[in-house]
Each structure stands twice: as C-alpha cells, then as structure tokens.
C-alpha cells in the first residue's frame, strides 16, 4: 500500500500487523525506525470495515440494533444504549423509570467487563503472556453469566429497545448482581496488589506516551485517556443522560496522562462503577421495563436529525441519525471513540522505542470493530 514514509534508506521499515499478537485485532502500523527509535508511524485501517453504516441505511431502525453489538464487541450493551438513546432523541420517545435503572446497571457492568479485559490485554502486551488475562477473564465470566441469564447471550445481547429494554429482570437477578458487586472489590484489591508497585509495570509505562491536555482535546480524544491527562470531562456528568444525576460518584483524574495513569485510572473508574451499581441496585423501582406506547417495529421517525452520545468505556460513543421520515434511516453514523483516539497515535510514539509503541497502543484501548465499523 502506498504510504508516506521518510525517504532515507537508513531507516528500517516494519509493518506491524495486521496479524500480530499485540495489535488488538486487525490493525496495521507502518513504522519507520532509526535503530529502535520511531521516526514515523502511519496506521492503516479498514481490515475490518464491514460497512455497518451502509447496511443500516437499508434496514429498519430496530434491525440495526444487533449490528451495534458488533461495533465495540467487548462492551455490547453500552453500544445498544447509545443507539437506543439516539433513536429516542430523534423520535421523542420517553423511557420509564425502571428501564432507566436497568440501563444504568447494565452499562456499569459493561464498564466493569471492559476495564477488566483491558487490564488483561495490556499486561499481555507487556509480556505477562496470559496470567493477568486469566484473572481478568475469571471475573468477566461471572458478569457474562449474569448477562446470559438476562438477555440470552453472553456477548451479543441485543437488549435495549427504543423506550426501554427487551425484557424484565428475571427473579433473583438483582440479588445475584448485588452479590457480584459486593465481591468485586476483592478482585480489584488482588490486582492492585500485583500491579501498583510492580517494577516492570512502572519501568515500562511511566513517562511513556503523554501529550499536553490541549493537544488531546484538539485531537478529539475522550474517555479514560483524556481524564488520565487531568481533564475532567465525563459525559455522565456533563450531559447527565439517563438518570446519572441521581447517583453520587466521583470522576477520577490522572496527572500526567502517561500509560501508567491510563492503567491506574481504570482501577479507580471500576471502583466508582461499583459505587453506582450499589446505588442503582438499591434504588431499583418497579414499573414498566419498556414504554408501553413505544412502537418498535416498522415505525417511522419524524423528519430531522439527532446526535446523541454516551460515556462508553472507551470514550464518547455517539450516534448521528438523519431521518427522512421513512422506516429506514437516511444516514446512520457512528462516532467511534477508538478511531478518533487513534488520531494522536503517531504523536505519542515519535521518539520512543518500538516496544513502547505496543504499550501505547494497548493503553488507548481500541477495538477494531469500532475503529473500522
């Protein structure tokens, strides 16, 4: 592929990917190295471009819901919520109380599985080869069991509907979720014991991959990467979508924004998620799990457009829908956090070693389903 790399023949050109253990999917980076130092890094996308947006133009709004699961496939339920919220904003559909609570509970559980899997993957990138992944997936399986009881599927839940959720919580689900939430801090304590003062982690991640705050904001970076640099911007607090304004939780902030901060901030975010979960499970009201007046299939949205966003585990996940009054969307656009967070990948890696590139890419926490859609 024709890529613009510096011309000198003293440089070593390496193509990392698309099949590579550390690229988190089919992502390719064309790197030009002077010895071990990165001189230029050009990412190549599109190896998982499944034209989700084009398919969505040909099917109804509800039929796109299963496809949103497959966008960021580590956190499918947040994607479902973001899309459902976009259609609800577009068409003016209200969501009942119980459904809002269920959505918050599922979204925070999804944040837990995403950050847990992230820990496993980035430690695998650093050479821990699968030990951390084993611990992480042990906890993830417990949450996936809950999802399977509720939605019928471990991963591709397809659970949110316009106006609420697909079905109500089964008996005993809330109690089991509470048991899980009570037991989760033990896992976090265990991982922190292994990681916080770990020499190898400190040596490989401190001082690596930081950028000034203004550059990050200008680059459209959102999510834990932005907060690790000290910018207090969490869409759950800024937009207060859903019922997040009813829960007391803090926003952890990092200091320098290097890879170490990005890893540690996820520990703190998981603890805040547990706090939200405790409150949401306690305050769970009765009532409808879906708006009884909402028509799900074959409904025509009013003419107009809407952009709505949520604080997904990876950043700002937005959906921009343009409707021409028919049953299919006219234009369906996903604002992918992983894709836009990668804009500054080259800036973060210039002047560092090749090994650092792997850590930096891991700390951005990308999922190719979302990057390429």
């Amino acid at each position: 592929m024709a890529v613009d790399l510096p011309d000198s023949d003293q440089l070593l050109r390496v193509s990392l990917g698309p099949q590579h253990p550390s690229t988190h999917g089919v992502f390719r980076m064309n790197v030009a190295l002077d010895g071990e130092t990165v001189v230029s890094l050009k990412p190549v996308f599109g190896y998982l471009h499944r034209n989700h947006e084009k398919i969505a133009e040909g099917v109804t709004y509800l039929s796109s819901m299963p496809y949103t699961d497959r966008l960021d496939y580590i956190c499918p339920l947040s994607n479902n919520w973001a899309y459902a919220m976009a259609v609800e904003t577009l068409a003016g559909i209200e969501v009942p109380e119980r459904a809002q609570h269920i959505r918050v509970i599922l979204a925070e559980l999804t944040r837990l599985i995403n950050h847990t899997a992230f820990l496993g993957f980035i430690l695998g990138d650093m050479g821990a080869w699968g030990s951390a992944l084993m611990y992480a997936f042990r906890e993830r399986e417990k949450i996936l069991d809950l999802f399977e009881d509720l939605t019928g599927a471990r991963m591709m839940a397809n659970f949110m509907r316009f106006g609420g959720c697909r079905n109500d919580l089964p008996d005993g689900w809330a109690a089991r979720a509470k048991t899980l939430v009570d037991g989760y801090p033990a896992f976090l304590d265990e991982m922190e014991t292994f990681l916080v003062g770990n020499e190898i982690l400190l040596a490989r991640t401190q001082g690596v991959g930081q950028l000034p705050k203004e550059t990050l904001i200008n680059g459209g970076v959102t999510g834990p990467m932005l907060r690790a640099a000290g910018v207090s911007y969490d869409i759950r607090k800024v937009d207060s979508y859903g019922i997040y304004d009813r829960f007391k939780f803090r926003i952890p902030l990092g200091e320098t924004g290097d890879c170490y901060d990005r890893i540690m901030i996820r520990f703190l975010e998981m603890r805040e998620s547990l706090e939200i979960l405790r409150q949401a499970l306690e305050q769970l009201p009765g009532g409808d799990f879906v708006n009884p007046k909402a028509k799900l299939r074959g409904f025509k949205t009013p003419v107009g457009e809407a952009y709505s966003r949520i604080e997904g585990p990876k950043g700002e996940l937005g959906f921009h829908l343009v409707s021409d009054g028919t049953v299919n969307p006219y234009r369906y656009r996903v604002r992918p956090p992983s894709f836009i967070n990668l804009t500054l990948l080259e800036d973060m890696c210039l002047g560092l070693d090749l090994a650092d590139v792997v850590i930096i890419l891991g700390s951005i926490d990308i999922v190719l389903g979302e990057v390429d859609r």
Partner: protein
Amino acid sequence: MKADPAAILEHLRTALPGTTLALRTNPGPSAQHSILVERESLVAVLQHLRDAMGFDMLSNVTGVDWPDPVKADSVAVVGEGGQVSHNEGFLEVIYHLFSTENRVGPLVVRARTADRGDGAHIPSAVPIFRSAEFQEREIYDLFGIRFMGHPDLRRILMWDEFVDHPMRKDYIAPDDYEYEPTPHGAVVEKAKAHYPAADSQATFSRASD
C-alpha cells in the same frame, strides 16, 4: 447544556462580517438546529468558534449524500434570512462541536459542496481541529469529497486501488453472493440471475455436486 445556534449565529455575523451564514432548523423532536456555512468561510468560522467562543473539541464529522436537494431542505429547514442553497444534488459535511470548559454542546455546523461530481470539495478543518484528520479521510474514501488543505488525503478504509465511493446513494455493490436458501423481497430478483432456469417438473431440491 445545549448550545444555542441562533445566538451563536448572531455573534458570528458580527464577528465575521462578509461570511454567508444561515440558520437551519431541525423539525424533529430533538430540535438540534444547525448553522449552514458557506464553503469558503468554513475555516474562518471554525477558527473563531474555537478561539473566541470556547468550542475546543470537534467531536464528530459526518458526510451525507443528498442526491435530492428538496429532501435535504426538509431535514435542515430554511430559517429566516436563509435561502435555498441548491438546485441539484450535493454532498454535505456536518460538524458537531463541543466546549469542554463551558460544558456546552453539540453545536451543529454544516457545509455543502457545489455538486456531486468528481470535483466536489470542501476546505479541510484539520488545521483547526486535529480530530478531523481521520474522519475527513473517511469521508473522502466513502463519499468522494476532496478536503482542500488536508495534510494526507488518501483512502483510509478501502484499499488504494478501489475507485468507487461506496456510501453514495447510487453506489452499486458487486454482486458476489449467490447462495440464498429462501430469497424474498428484492433479493429474489437478484437471486434469479444466479439460479439456473427451473423447469416446471423441478421441485425445491439441492443439486448434488
């Protein structure tokens, strides 16, 4: 806090005289109205919004293909003082801006090309907002809008040798899948091109290979 495009529009008109701006209202319940900016003044407007009005994050850049300008004007309705912009089809780029300091957003800004031909172009927002870099490359790849001033405009999702712009409304995908056990709807017509002609005696059976 939601942005107030009408007030921002007035402010822009006083700050940047000579630019052609119009308010476009959104008829749906979301009421996210937008500011339509003339192509040539797009960069100046974005710069003013970033430097003087605190909109420091360009979050989303969307491309839309409007072969039918009447439909485009039904989604972004002409407000007062604005005029209908096109007689023929065009391509549009929609920007969503946020202010991280003032917690305001989204501010919706639109810009349109002259037509849907090969020369369709819009000035690039990358000198002002770095976040537009990959998103504009994607719009170039999938819609065919050239962004003048983009540092590295080439295809991003499709391979370089690809010549079509797939997200356009008149794109025809290659017909490369035959096997469809029970085609229905529009797929029947496509499937008939691949099935051998059936005689009246034949029943639904799978010819063994």
